[in-house]
């Protein structure tokens, strides 16, 4: 296990917050892209 010393909480929190935000954006982007592509496919049939 990596020893982050007295700043461990700050470092973990910074990574969790930033990766959580960016990961959420990626998931939202991909899910919306799939949903819109499916709806457009249905509308064009």
């Amino acid at each position, binding site marked *: 296990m*990596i*020893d*982050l*010393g*007295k*700043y*461990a909480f*700050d*470092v973990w*929190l*910074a*990574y969790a*917050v*930033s*990766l959580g*935000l*960016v990961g*959420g*954006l*990626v998931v939202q*982007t*991909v899910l*919306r*892209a799939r949903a*819109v*592509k499916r*709806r*457009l496919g249905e*509308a*064009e049939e």
Partner: protein
Amino acid sequence: MSLSDRIWAWANPRKFMALSGAILPWAWGLAALCLGVGLIWGFAFTPDDFRMGSSVKIIYVHVPTAFIAINAWFMMLLASLVWLVRRHHVSALAARAAAPVGLVMTVAALATGAIWGKPMWGTYWAWDPRLTSFLILALFYVGYIALWEAVESPDAAADLTSVLCLVGSVFAVLSRYAAQFWNQGLHQGASLSLDAEENVADVFWQPLVLTLVGFGALFVALVLQRTRTEIRVRRLHSLKARARAEAPA
């Protein structure tokens, strides 16, 4: 066909979809590779700083998100100018697609900065020039997204948001250069610069460059993906409008 004509030809939605479809897997792949390697390298295999201790590892998420936050606005500015001058719809949709990405990066930079600021400065927040201009940039992102949602006519929304983007560019510039302009406050100057004397030590610099490339590729992938979605939404709306017009009264 001149080079200029060839470049502008990519503003055609059909050509843009073909080109972006070919680029996207590479952009996602490059982002995953660089972020995976860069973040693990920076987090697990770099030493502590002699003054900041292990908190220096926050640099690998703070600096790239701040870098993208500012440059996303400049990309929106470029796309907005193309819309205002050439009236290419894809450029307006690309600017719209980039705004949520820029907002998330700005919020991430503000949050990681606050988390880093507490142990280093003794406070989560100070009305420092760079921090304040970054907060205003975040508010401009929110206003820009809200304006797109509020105006029903897509062309009118593109016009209004393009003007807002021009105005907001002042704060994007201030966010980048605030530490130099005012030369005061808690925030340091640039961590990376073409001037080698200002750069962080190599042991931190190498994984930092990798995460910057990773976040840059992620930005490209997200914007291309979201622009493709906006184009499809526009197409969906026009199909629905045509169906309504052709429906018997």
